[in-house]
């Protein structure tokens, strides 16, 4: 079951270096006991705003997405490890969105206008 998703922003580098950095991060994840499921590349693009990380400033970055299964206790240590890495601009671990069930949305239930007429006054 997909548990966590890592939205990783790496420094804009040459292809070999990005490959090496990715390999390093994935190996670190596996050492902590996470099972990597899938790795996606969202492309390299200009960052929405100038970021400074590890005493360096970046304008461009490569976006990568890693989904993995991990025990809940190791998530903290993974975050710490990634924040220490120089090539990583910003790591973000999030619960996997596809695990959340899509509730059936029946539609907009029409509210009778009588209730709206006597709506309680909003108090600040």
């Amino acid at each position, binding site marked *: 079951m997909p548990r966590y998703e890592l939205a990783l922003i790496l420094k804009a580098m040459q292809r070999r270096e990005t490959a090496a950095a990715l390999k390093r991060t994935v190996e670190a994840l596996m050492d902590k006991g996470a099972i990597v499921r899938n790795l996606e590349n969202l492309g390299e693009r200009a960052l*929405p705003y100038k970021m400074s990380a590890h005493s360096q400033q970046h304008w461009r970055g490569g976006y990568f997405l890693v989904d993995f299964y991990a025990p809940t206790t190791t998530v903290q240590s993974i975050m710490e490890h990634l924040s220490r890495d120089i090539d990583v601009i910003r790591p973000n671990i999030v619960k996997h969105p596809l695990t959340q069930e899509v509730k059936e949305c029946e*539609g*907009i239930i029409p509210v009778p206008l009588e209730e709206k007429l006597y709506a309680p006054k909003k108090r600040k």
Partner: protein
Amino acid sequence: MAALVAVYRVLGRKKLTHGITAAVCLPDPGTRTVLWRRSCSQYKQVTSNENLPVAMENPYKEPLKKCILCGKHVDYKNVQLLSQFISPYTGCIHGRHITGLCGKKQKEVSKAIKRAQIMEL
């Protein structure tokens, strides 16, 4: 019958039915009580007739109106979709009266926008 009339005068109009049943028990034993009781019970059974309408759900009910995102999963990663719900000039999230989404979807969208903003997407 005289006894009944006397009872009626004493008790007053509201308590008439009660008075009748009570009076029936006391001074008129035998057949008259039986007749009264039977007529009362028959009067109640008139309502359960077969020709009356049967209670059921409205068969001509239309399906409820759905918002544009109903049933679709909202992800923080599709920035293009989320950027449609924010103002191009100020960047603030549009209210429900502008987007026209249902309550749940509006909340999901706003949460996803916040997430994407924090994660620089």
